[in-house]
């Protein structure tokens, strides 16, 4: 076991000797340099291992042979080992990253780097206040020298500002330390008791702690840091942002016990403010490194507030929160800074060049996901526990602010990610990189990927089936080089196996949704066999999405559920992103989804504990949920189901996704919000909330149906039309669930199943049409019935099922729906539903007529029927639809049984006849009569006109003029112009304007705060001093 003091000794000695070795040769000095850094890491690794696993007692090192407080002592405990392990790790890898630079640089830079590393180690380990000051100065000076390594105007001025700020801050710190010594007669942290200090002593503590605190870059006294981040070399800045910050953060942690509670709380809020505002300011930022700078500052703020607000938390939680945020920040930030050095593009808009190097792009994505605290990375767990803790401590405002900050952070990070993925500029030169630069990044990402497994296994004992989505993603990624079809078949097999695994665990409601998610997903997956080539990064995401949906059904406790919810969000976002023009649409989807997920997280945090060995879908129905919890969760589910008000992500996301993906999204993903609602409703039936919140949710659902339907009517793009149609249809389901009645719940499930069938069917048929015609605009098509008859039949059956025209299953849903609504006493609502249902005829007719009927365009004369892979799943859906239409009890009976588990049945099922309190419906008889009445005129006509005269296109009764071209004869564009007149002012897009306004105001607000950063060093100093004064006044000492 090596005494950690040797780290300091060795670094110091080699630091001095390095220039002498360098005279012999750069190779030697480099070897020694890296040797020392590796040694440091090695020592820390051993210590960390021993303290954690072997459980040795922490080591106290007394220097100069005296016991503290007479001499300075160092401490090596688990916390120190933890921080230093990661700091030395980053320090070593940053040095490797800088290998090429160091090879050419002056030897002094290597020396400085070593000294910096030594300073950091000392800073963390020392227990002496004055010693802290010394190490702080060592770190500052060496950092300054490293910043100005690149001699350009920007870095020189940044270094100067850094020096100025550091000078002022350490002056205050030193003053504080001196007075603390004056009052306590001591400099050793373990022997100072600030509890006995008088007011003057408190000022000393104030100065000392503020000195450290400002080093952590609170808003707005942090302009100097931003300039440093922007101007410094990527390798160096990673050390400054990560290694230095971690060490100083730890110093703050060390002196925390000395800080009086009111000041500590104030600092916690200041940290929070920094996090929120720097995330806000990041929104407008275009420069990559400055963006990361904002993120760094924000993360430090978050860390401070986390450490301050969790002082009373159990050790398990505080370790997870603070440690999670810290590790997350250290690793992700360092890696991202390094990537900025590889890409060498200042503007984030130019990051499309990353497309030249897919591995690097993937690493970039990985680190970004980690930084955004998405699962399974450490930040995710930390945030989860942090929010729960805050809610438990009744610090709701703090929790909300943390989430708002996180949302802004995700916004600016993923704007960047989308630009990198989607903005391809192939004229650009290749990315110049080397192994010494790539490897550190890859290694970091690897470490980040391993930590979650440790967390899941040791902290939570989560069943590793919940990692299955990620594992599927990775496995498919590994076998990416095999052809798409084989991967597709493998995916199908995986789904089958997964379903087989899941089946014994499920019953009732779970089983129903499993059918939708897994079987429905499997059927639609067949259509993806049409994809050619390698089709990279597709099946992994697809599997990830479906598996996470399946996992939702068996998740125990809130955390497992939320974990899979986030997996589902991430995978669907990435699937959306694959679309050709999906940069903005997928971004909007992500922001809304994450906001929804955060609402869900808050909702869970407010909810009482549930039994951890029961599936959440069951256990949550057995507890009384508080009203706030229901509202928050409902909002989350409303967003996911694209209800009115939060629907604006729907049309673009659906339209811009790849066509087969859209079918999947509409068919199965749209049901996940319904699943949530259903469970909430069941819970509310047995445990009534104080306010009848579901009444209002019902209205939202009802209004979604009518407004969604009208929006669909006026679309020219058929996928947008169908997207709005989905919004409308999902509105029916939401409204049905919200009734909290037996018939309502049955209706909701029936509608969900039906929606899967007909939306899967129509979207796949449409996908085939788009595949052949290469357009989504309906008016550019027409007359395709003769070219694509099977697709036509699919759409025909689909729209009959949507519209609710008997004899298909759609009528069953309408019958259930109105019966349920009238039975419940929601009369006006059912009137609106009638209206919406009638309006749906408009868009359905528009869809089928504009595409398949009317005049065929000249350019489509040679269009063929859709490929077999699109047709096959359609046939399956058609068979399913016809079966449940003819034998409705096949579906009604099980649904009645499922809902019967929660609430007494209100319908009687006798054979094919369903009787409610209001009326009756015999689906089988309706089908038979319809068949009969259809055959009568058909046979009559066949008898009367056996042979018809076929005519060519345009041979129509056209009075006095001759139709010239399909374009002028086909009525399709702006088909319902007259309805626009009817609606008048009601047709304005108010909700879209509202959200645009929100985006605009948020950005402007962010921009406003950026005005603080003038770039003037003197102003920055003023900020620091004013900051202290203001805090002092607030504190009112």
């Amino acid at each position, binding site marked *: 076991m090596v005494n950690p003091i040797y780290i300091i000794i060795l670094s110091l000695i080699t630091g001095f000797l390095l220039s002498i070795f360098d005279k012999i040769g750069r190779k030697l000095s480099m070897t020694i340099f890296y040797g020392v850094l590796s040694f440091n890491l090695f020592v820390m690794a051993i210590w960390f291992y021993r303290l954690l696993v072997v459980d040795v007692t922490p080591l106290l090192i007394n220097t100069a042979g005296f016991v503290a407080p007479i001499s300075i002592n160092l401490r090596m405990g688990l916390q120190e080992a933890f921080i230093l392990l990661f700091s030395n790790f980053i320090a070593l890898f940053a040095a490797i990253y800088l290998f090429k630079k160091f090879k050419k640089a002056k030897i002094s830079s290597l020396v400085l780097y070593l000294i910096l590393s030594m300073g950091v180690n000392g800073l963390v380990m020392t227990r002496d206040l004055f010693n802290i000051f010394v190490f702080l100065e060592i770190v500052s000076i060496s950092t300054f020298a490293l910043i100005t390594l690149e001699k350009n105007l920007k870095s020189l001025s940044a270094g100067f500002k850094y020096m100025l700020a550091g000078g002022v801050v350490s002056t205050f710190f030193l003053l504080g330390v001196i007075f603390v010594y004056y009052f306590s007669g001591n400099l050793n942290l373990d022997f100072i008791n600030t509890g006995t200090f008088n007011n003057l002593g408190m000022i000393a503590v104030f100065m000392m702690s503020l000195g450290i605190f400002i080093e952590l870059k609170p808003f707005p006294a942090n302009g100097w840091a931003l300039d440093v981040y922007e101007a410094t070399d990527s390798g160096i800045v990673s050390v400054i942002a990560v290694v230095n910050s971690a060490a100083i953060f730890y110093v703050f942690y060390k002196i925390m016990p000395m800080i009086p509670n009111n000041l500590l709380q104030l600092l916690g809020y200041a940290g929070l403010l920094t996090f929120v505002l720097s995330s806000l300011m990041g929104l407008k930022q275009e420069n990559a490194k400055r963006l990361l700078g904002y993120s760094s500052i924000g993360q430090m703020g978050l860390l401070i507030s986390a450490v301050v607000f969790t002082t009373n938390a159990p050790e398990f939680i505080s370790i997870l929160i603070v440690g999670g945020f810290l590790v997350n920040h250290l690793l992700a930030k360092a890696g991202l800074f390094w990537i900025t050095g590889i890409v060498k593009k200042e503007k984030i808009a130019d990051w499309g060049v990353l497309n030249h190097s897919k591995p690097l792009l993937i690493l970039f994505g990985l680190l970004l996901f980690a930084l955004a605290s998405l699962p399974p990375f450490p930040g995710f767990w930390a945030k989860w526990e942090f929010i729960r803790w805050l809610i438990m401590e009744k610090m709701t405002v703090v929790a909300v602010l943390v989430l708002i900050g996180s949302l802004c952070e995700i916004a600016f990070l993923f704007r960047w990610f989308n630009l990198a993925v989607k903005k391809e500029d192939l004229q650009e030169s290749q990315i110049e990189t080397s192994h010494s630069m790539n490897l550190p990044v890859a290694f970091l990402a690897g470490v980040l990927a391993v930590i979650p497994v440790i967390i899941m296994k040791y902290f939570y004992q989560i069943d590793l089936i919940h990692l299955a989505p990620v594992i599927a993603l990775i496995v498919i990624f590994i076998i990416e080089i095999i052809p798409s079809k084989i991967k597709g078949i493998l995916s199908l097999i995986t789904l089958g196996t997964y379903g087989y695994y899941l089946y014994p665990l499920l019953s009732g409601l779970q089983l129903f949704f499993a059918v939708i998610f897994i079987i429905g997903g499997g059927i639609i997956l067949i259509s993806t066999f049409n994809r050619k080539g390698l089709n990279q990064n597709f099946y992994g995401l697809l599997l990830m999405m479906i598996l996470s949906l399946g996992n939702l059904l068996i998740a125990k406790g809130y955390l497992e559920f939320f974990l899979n919810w986030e997996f589902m969000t991430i995978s669907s976002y990435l699937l959306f992103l694959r679309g050709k023009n999906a940069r903005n649409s997928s971004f909007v989807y992500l922001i809304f989804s994450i906001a929804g997920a955060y609402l869900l997280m808050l909702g869970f945090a407010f909810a009482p504990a549930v039994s951890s060995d029961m599936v959440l879908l069951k256990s949550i129905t057995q507890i009384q949920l508080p009203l706030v919890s229901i509202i928050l969760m409902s909002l989350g589910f409303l967003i996911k189901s694209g209800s009115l008000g939060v629907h604006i992500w729907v049309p673009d996301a659906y339209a811009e996704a790849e066509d087969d993906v859209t079918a999947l999204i509409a068919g199965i993903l749209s049901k996940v919000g319904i699943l949530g609602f259903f469970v909430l409703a069941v819970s509310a039936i047995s445990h009534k909330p104080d306010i009848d919140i579901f009444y209002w949710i019902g209205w939202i659902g009802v209004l979604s149906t009518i407004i969604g339907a009208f929006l669909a009517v006026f679309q020219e793009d058929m996928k947008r039309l169908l997207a709005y149609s989905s919004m409308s249809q999902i509105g029916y389901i939401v409204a049905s669930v919200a009734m909290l009645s037996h018939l309502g719940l049955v209706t909701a499930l029936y509608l969900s199943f039906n929606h899967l069938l007909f939306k899967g069917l129509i979207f796949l048929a449409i996908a085939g049409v788009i595949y052949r015609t290469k357009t989504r605009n309906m008016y550019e098509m027409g*007359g395709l019935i003769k070219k694509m008859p099977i697709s036509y039949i699919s759409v025909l059956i689909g729209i*009959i099922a949507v519209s609710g*025209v008997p004899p298909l299953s759609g*009528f069953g849903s309408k019958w259930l729906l109105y019966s349920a609504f009238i039975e419940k006493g929601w009369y006006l609502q059912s009137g609106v539903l009638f*209206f919406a249902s*009638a309006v749906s005829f408009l868009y359905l007719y528009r869809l089928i007529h504009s595409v398949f009927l009317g005049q065929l365009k000249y350019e489509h004369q040679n269009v063929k029927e859709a490929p077999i892979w699109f047709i096959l799943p359609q046939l399956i859906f058609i068979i399913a639809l016809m079966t449940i239409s003819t034998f409705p009890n096949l579906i009604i009976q099980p649904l009645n049984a499922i809902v019967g588990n929660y609430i007494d049945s209100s319908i009687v099922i006798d054979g094919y006849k369903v009787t409610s309190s209001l009326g009756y419906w015999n689906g089988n008889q309706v089908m038979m009569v319809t068949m009969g009445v259809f055959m009568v005129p*058909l046979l009559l006509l066949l008898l009367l*006109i056996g042979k018809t005269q076929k005519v060519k296109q345009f041979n*129509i009764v*056209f009075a006095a003029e001759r139709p010239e071209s399909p374009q002028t004869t086909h009525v399709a564009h702006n088909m319902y112009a007259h309805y626009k007149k009817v609606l008048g002012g009601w047709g304005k897009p108010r909700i879209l304007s509202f959200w645009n306004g929100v985006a605009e105001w948020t950005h402007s607000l962010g921009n406003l705060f950026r005005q603080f950063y003038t770039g003037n060093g003197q102003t920055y100093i003023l900020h620091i001093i004013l900051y202290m004064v203001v805090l002092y006044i607030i504190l009112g000492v």
Partner: protein
Amino acid sequence: MDIWTKIFYAVISVVIATIYGLALGGVVRKIYARVHGRYGPPVWQPFIDIIKTHAKRVAVSHGIMFYLGPVFRFAGGLGTYLFIPVIFGSAVFANFSMAGDLLLVMYFIFFGQLGMALGAGEGGHPYSPLGIARGLSQMTTFEVPFALSVIALAIQYHTLNITAIVAAQQGSILNWTLFTNPFAVVAAMISMLGMNMHSPFSIVLAPQEIPIGPPIEMNSSFLATLQTNRGLFVAAKLILFMNLYFGGATNLVVMIVKTFLIYMFSVFVGAAFPRFRPEQAMRFFLKWPTIIGIISIIFVAYL
């Protein structure tokens, strides 16, 4: 009752209703002619028209969907009629009303409209989709007061079973919905003006703008099928209104008298008013009739 008897009864019922509906059409044409100051065609003109169009030598078809359009339309008429119990207490005229309630009838009306719209669409004539777009749009608006009125009925009678609704109105003329829930009747009657597409709501067939609209390409037996359906469908709708609002009928004569009088409302309004523009027609339905429909619900549910 075994299925063949049922079918036999249904055939009788359908034939009678069709003949009645066509004759009614003839009478109405006569009335319109007299209002216009013409002598008008004979009452049996619709029958002559059907025979004549059937007798055309050439039948032009634009494709399978075009061929099926009239089939759908007639099947829609047949189905709508067959799901309505025509005469209260009569086995012959009970039709297939045991398959579903009022909601089924309301949605089966769309069956024929949708099929016809598709068939006409394949015809390729621009006037067809224009007419259909107008027709569907107008339909969405007159459905609103009608649906509100039906909801009011469901509240009032606690059922959507048509036979039960008729049963509840038996006994006295004062038991008719017309007197027990006048607002619902007013709303429904106004929306019936739209359904029957007489002036001022004749925007679909609008001869001066989009000559006869959707069926413009229909010829020979296709057209004849549509003409036959027109008779049956009108009868079906009138019988539905009679059942819901005017006490139903216990025998054929009462049925004929009542439906004739109900139809006259449309005819009188149609003869007296000029045609609306599409958006005027639609706005009309979304204003007063809708408000009256809402009042009818409040009337039965909360007062």
